[in-house]
């Protein structure tokens, strides 16, 4: 500023007091430029007007107000030169201010920013770049960028160049080298800066270090790949389910004031079905496609209730587990595949993404139908064997008893007839007749003894009276009859009162009774149209007895049969021996209970039997 002022004074003195012919005033331009280099807008303006004023003063002093001549023209040129310089300086100063501001911004950002010219020489290098690459600005400036940073582009450099030159910018990830030699992955944004005439000048590159993020992404992706691979290739069936809608529904329920979800589910089975329909199958693996007999994965996506039959009892437990924040829910249930076959499966369900993500619940399923079938077949065979052995033994025993009783009976009849013949002879032989009659009496006694012996033999059979759980016994019966129930489309309901006492007796015999009554009920419904329901109920009957009822929705007991329903050899079935109910009744009665049947007003029959809860008195065999 001072220099400018001194120079202006010198020029003024020369211009005014020397007779130099020429445009001395042009030197004022230097003054303006000097001020412009460091001064404010006002200083520049002041300097320009000052210089112009001094020029005019010098001119007037030396020339007066002459007409338009050469000196006048020179003065005007000088004035306009000063004015133009001032304007230009002002504009340049504005631009400089902008650039300085931008440069400060560049320094402030954490991103790395560097600028290279068209020869790839670095001309600007900010603190971010120093941190990212390890080179200081003074080290980096003047170096060739590609060389210094060993930049590797994701594609060929011509592709990047083409994008840069046509669109003016390019974004992408490049790998570069840090000063210490390690590789950094940089998310880069390049911009090509052109001058006013459109000539490419420099390339500005802004970059962010994404090395750590990429490493995390890669780890995540690898983990996801591994999960996918396990999911897809596993021999087990895997399902992914979206429970979001179910959780929304439960949230609504809680808003409505339901606090005891377990209790609510127990009394609202329809809600469980609703949740089942809201559960969406979002993905399954190949093993599932095979298991469910589908053509492709897409066949199986959608609501879960297509596969879970209404008889399922495990879903409410699953809802509770998930609603309580996850963990693992597992159990055994049935699912129906696309061919309509019923599969028995073990399932386990968990939430790999934590208790807050309901959109991706993982379920693993193992088909144990064959194993169950084998178990059931084995049980059935064992039961049949036991039955067959019992029948064989019974057959042999009854043949032997029949022979033992028949011999004296044959003798009695023949003696009787012989005695009649002795008496009817022309000369009746009383002696022979008496002998024969005495033998009738003797042999009748003998027959009676045989009968007595058989009875005492039967009662000598050791009875094993134990307390047992009726529910388990019924479950075993249900398992044995499962095939038959499925074949006749019978739905079984078991309703054993929670406070029902444990019965006591010969478990094997009583199981035969239950099996027999259930089997009868199933077959009684084989011709019925509509619902076929078999219900087994049990509850306390007074203090010392348990009442069990087996109820069917069949045609009921015909009137002509009802009176001798429990007699031996009475049957309504072609294949039956008519021994079942007779044996059932004698079994129940030998336990001190009663067995009877009634018809239900709404159709079907109910068989009732009681069992004492305390030790049964040995009722006469």
């Amino acid at each position, binding site marked *: 500023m001072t220099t400018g002022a001194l120079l202006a004074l010198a020029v003024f003195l020369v211009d005014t007091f020397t007779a130099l012919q020429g445009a001395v005033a042009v030197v004022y331009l230097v003054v303006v430029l000097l001020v412009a280099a460091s001064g404010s807008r006002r200083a520049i303006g002041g300097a320009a007007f000052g210089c112009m004023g001094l020029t005019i003063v010098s001119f007037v002093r030396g020339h007066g107000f002459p007409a338009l001549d050469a000196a006048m023209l020179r003065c005007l040129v000088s004035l306009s030169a000063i004015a133009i310089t001032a304007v230009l300086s002002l504009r340049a100063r504005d631009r400089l201010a902008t650039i300085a501001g931008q440069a400060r911004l560049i320094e402030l950002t954490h991103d790395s920013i560097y600028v290279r010219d068209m020869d790839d020489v670095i001309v600007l290098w900010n603190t971010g770049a120093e941190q990212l690459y390890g080179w200081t600005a003074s080290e980096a400036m003047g170096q060739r960028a590609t060389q210094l940073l060993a930049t590797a582009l994701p594609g060929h450099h011509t592709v990047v160049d083409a994008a840069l030159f046509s669109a003016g910018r390019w974004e992408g990830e490049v790998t570069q080298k840090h000063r210490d030699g390690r590789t950094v992955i940089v998310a880069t944004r390049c911009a090509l800066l052109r001058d006013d005439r459109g000539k490419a000048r420099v390339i500005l590159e802004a970059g962010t270090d994404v090395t750590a993020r990429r490493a995390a992404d890669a780890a995540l992706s690898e983990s996801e790949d591994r999960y996918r691979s396990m999911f897809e290739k596993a021999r087990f069936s895997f399902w992914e389910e979206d429970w979001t809608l179910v959780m929304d529904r439960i949230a609504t329920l809680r808003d409505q004031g339901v606090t005891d979800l377990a209790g609510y589910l127990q009394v609202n089975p329809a809600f469980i079905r609703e949740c089942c329909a809201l559960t969406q199958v979002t993905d399954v693996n190949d093993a599932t496609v095979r298991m469910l007999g589908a053509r492709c994965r897409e066949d199986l996506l959608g609501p879960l209730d297509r596969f879970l039959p209404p008889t399922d009892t495990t879903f409410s437990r699953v809802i509770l587990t998930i609603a309580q924040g996850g963990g693992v829910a597992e159990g055994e249930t049935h699912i129906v595949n696309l061919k309509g076959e019923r599969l028995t499966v073990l399932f386990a369900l968990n939430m790999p993404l934590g208790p807050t993500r309901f959109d991706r619940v993982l379920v693993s399923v193992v088909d144990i139908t064959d194993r169950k079938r084998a178990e059931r077949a084995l049980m059935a065979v064992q039961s049949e064997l036991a039955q067959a052995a019992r029948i064989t033994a019974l057959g042999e025993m009854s043949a032997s008893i029949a022979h033992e009783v028949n011999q004296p009976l044959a003798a009695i009849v*023949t003696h009787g007839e012989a005695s009649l013949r002795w008496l009817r002879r022309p000369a009746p032989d009383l002696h022979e007749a008496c002998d024969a009659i005495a033998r009738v009496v003797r042999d009748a006694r003998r027959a009676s003894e045989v009968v007595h012996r058989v009875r005492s033999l039967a009662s000598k059979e050791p009875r094993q009276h134990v307390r047992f759980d009726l529910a388990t016994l019924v479950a075993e019966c249900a398992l044995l009859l499962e095939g038959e129930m499925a074949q006749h489309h019978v739905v079984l309901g078991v309703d054993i009162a929670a406070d029902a006492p444990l019965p006591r007796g010969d478990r094997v015999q009583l199981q035969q009774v239950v099996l027999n009554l259930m089997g009868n009920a199933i077959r009684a419904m084989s011709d019925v149209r509509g619902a076929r329901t078999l219900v087994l109920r049990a509850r306390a009957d007074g203090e010392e007895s348990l009442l069990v009822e087996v109820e069917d929705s069949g045609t009921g007991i015909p009137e002509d049969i009802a009176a001798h329903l429990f007699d031996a050899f009475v049957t309504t079935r072609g294949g039956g021996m008519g021994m079942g109910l007779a044996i059932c009744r004698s079994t129940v009665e030998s336990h001190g209970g009663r067995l009877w049947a009634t018809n239900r007003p709404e159709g079907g029959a109910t068989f009732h039997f009681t069992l004492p809860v305390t030790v049964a008195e040995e009722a006469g065999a």
Partner: protein
Amino acid sequence: MTRMPPTMTAPPPVVCIVDDDAAVREALDSLFRSVGLNVATFSSAADFLARENASAPGCLVLDVRLPGVNGLDFQAQLAAMDNRLPIVFMTGHGDIPMSVRAMKAGALDFLSKPFRDQDMLDAVSMAIERDAAERRDATAIGALRQAYASLTPREREVMQHVTAGLMNKQVGSLLGLSEITVKIHRGNVMRKMAARSLAELVRQAEALAAHS
């Protein structure tokens, strides 16, 4: 069977009862005696085989279930020993296959205990009658054989051709004899065989052939 039984008095028929049950044995014994039949009772098959007077006529009343040996097997055993005594079976648990087997093997009847007395008596009297008839046949055949045994070889040849329907002249030319000689042999044959006509001689030849 138009001929009368042989003149010698036949021994009276005996009903043999084989049953291991004493009561049944006693009852049958009383029943058969009440109608005037002779009875012998045995508790086992072995006792029956060891009986005295084994050739006595009559019949066998046999229980199917015997100690030691099955009634049906015993029937087969008797047949093998050429004992032709007719058998009436009794069973405590009569089943059809067993009775069919017994009847096929020649049993006369198969009665289930307890049976009606009349059924048993009918079966037994039929059995005794069958036995008597068989014995008569056997006696007649025995006499024929005896008579046939008394023929000379030449007379047997003549009998064979004559009963085959050849004329005396044809028999003579076959055997290289004169017709007169054939006539003499033929007369001897008729006399020795006690045949009153050629038709009777033919019947006798047939009976001999059947029982040879």
